[in-house]
């Protein structure tokens, strides 16, 4: 799933990897900022410094990882070539600096030129990616709930960027205030639930099934999840732009989508053949725990804590877990696949460092949990713990990815050939 289903569908290693490496570095910078300024976790999320960190996490980390993974994943899922692989370089050249400009624009105190310029660059990059994706999708003969999830996620991501740009421009064009209304919840919903949630659900369904060897799991839950997210976002849009009094409908639909996500993961795990759960997979599976925390926070009237649980917990842990597996596979394919059969070649797991996997999982998990608790109870000590733990976890992840990519790997695992033959 990760690399090319066939060689002629694979894209150059450097295209996804530059997204993945830049994204993981952004996560480390974001958590380091929170370690240095833990008060951002307990204060109002709308202040420029908090918005800078939020966009470092959403745009520079999650978006870049998502784009990198989709460049590789989508053509494989659709069993076709990516329409124009080299457009991936242009997408990166637009989105990465654009995201940096937006983060800087918030960090320097809401500098509209930086926000507008960065937003325009990100939007242009995402539109280019959408074009590439839609052309690929149209050329495919085989589509399923997973590939549709990828497409929907990309479109939600573009709408998130568009809305974010318009929100930023309200300062310059006051007329936009009347048109947009209070669009921040919709901006958040499109990004967290639409772009990241749907992508994680779709890719996670496929990757989790593959990594734990689960077969025959229905994709109906995934399809219903997409409908629930779409309906929730439609309800939010109607409330935002037309003022429809839909009450908690969007929140209820979001909860339904979260429940479907958990049920899908449970269904996959119940029929898995690989009983032992590897640390990166456990990291991925820790993500939905924070979805439950987000539901509780929402019911308790603390949307700020819910957002933190979804972003620092669900999105970050789910991505971090799969990121290690994806980087391992891509690097193995790039460095060792051609040598198979002509000498001793390491297995994919020989590229991984278990200690760094555990530090990543513990650091990011404790960091997210402590951050939610710090925000819920306005606890400065907990915020400090969160910042330090999260920074350790994020740097462990960045270091691990760098290790996987550049280290001189050797085969250290005894192979299980031959003796495993015998009766089924």
């Amino acid at each position, binding site marked *: *799933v*990760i*690399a*090319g*289903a*066939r*060689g002629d569908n*694979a894209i150059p290693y450097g295209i996804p990897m530059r997204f993945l490496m830049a994204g993981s570095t952004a996560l480390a910078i974001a958590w380091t900022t929170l370690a240095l300024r833990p008060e951002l976790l307990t204060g109002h999320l709308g202040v420029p410094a908090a918005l800078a960190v939020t966009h470092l996490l959403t745009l520079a980390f999650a978006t870049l990882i998502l784009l990198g993974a989709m460049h590789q994943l989508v053509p*494989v*899922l659709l*069993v076709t070539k990516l329409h124009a692989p080299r457009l991936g370089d242009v997408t990166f050249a637009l989105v990465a600096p654009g995201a940096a400009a937006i983060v800087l624009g918030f960090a320097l105190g809401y500098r509209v030129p930086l926000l507008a310029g960065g937003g325009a660059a990100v939007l242009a990059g995402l539109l280019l990616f959408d074009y590439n994706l839609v052309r690929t999708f149209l050329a495919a003969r085989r589509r399923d709930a997973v590939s549709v999830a990828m497409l929907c996620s990309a479109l939600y991501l573009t709408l998130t960027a568009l809305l974010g740009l318009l929100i930023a421009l309200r300062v310059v064009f006051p007329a936009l205030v009347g048109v947009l209304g209070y669009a921040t919840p919709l901006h958040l919903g499109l990004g967290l639930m639409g772009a990241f949630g749907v992508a994680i659900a779709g890719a996670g369904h496929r990757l989790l*099934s*593959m*990594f734990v*060897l689960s*077969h025959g799991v229905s994709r109906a839950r995934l399809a219903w999840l997409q409908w629930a997210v779409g309906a929730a976002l439609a309800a939010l849009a109607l409330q935002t732009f037309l003022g429809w009094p839909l009450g908690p409908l969007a929140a209820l639909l979001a909860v339904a989508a979260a429940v479907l996500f958990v049920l899908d993961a449970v269904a996959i795990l119940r029929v898995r*053949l*690989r*009983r*032992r759960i590897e640390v990166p997979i456990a990291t991925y599976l820790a993500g939905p725990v924070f979805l439950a925390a987000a539901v509780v926070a929402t019911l308790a009237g603390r949307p700020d804590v819910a957002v933190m649980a979804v972003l620092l917990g669900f999105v970050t842990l789910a991505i971090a877990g799969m990121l290690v597996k994806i980087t391992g*596979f891509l690097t*193995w*394919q790039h460095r*060792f*696949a051609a040598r*198979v*059969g*002509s000498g001793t*070649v*390491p*297995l*994919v*797991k020989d590229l991984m460092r278990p200690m760094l996997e555990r530090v990543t999982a513990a650091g990011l998990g404790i960091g997210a949990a402590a951050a939610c608790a710090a925000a819920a109870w306005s606890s400065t000590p907990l915020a400090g713990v969160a910042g330090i733990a999260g920074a350790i976890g994020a740097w462990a992840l960045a270091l691990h990815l760098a290790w996987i990519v550049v280290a001189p790997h050797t085969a250290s*695992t005894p*192979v*299980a*050939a*031959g*003796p*495993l*033959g*015998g*009766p*089924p």
Partner: protein
Amino acid sequence: MTIAVTAVNPAQTEERVVAALAEVLDPELGIDVVALGLVYELHLVGDAITVQMTLTTPGCPLHDTIERDVRGRLERLDGVRYVDVQIVWDPPWHPARMSLAARDHLRL
């Protein structure tokens, strides 16, 4: 893990071919393709071998690698000139095709 074999040339024994295939590892699982039950049929005719096999999942990331490894190892056998590796998805692979030892290995 049952493999259907048709052999016209006795010089190419089933054991020899299966032993070569058992050296082809799934680099993610660390288990060979024979123990995984990925090999469905072998046709040994003269100096040609046709292998009909599958992978654990359609869109398997290791499609090319495994196919190339199978072809390479069989082409290195004495007396073999032609190797045809056919990846099929019908019937789909099922964990029940794995050897007991391979299943135990994955349950660790």
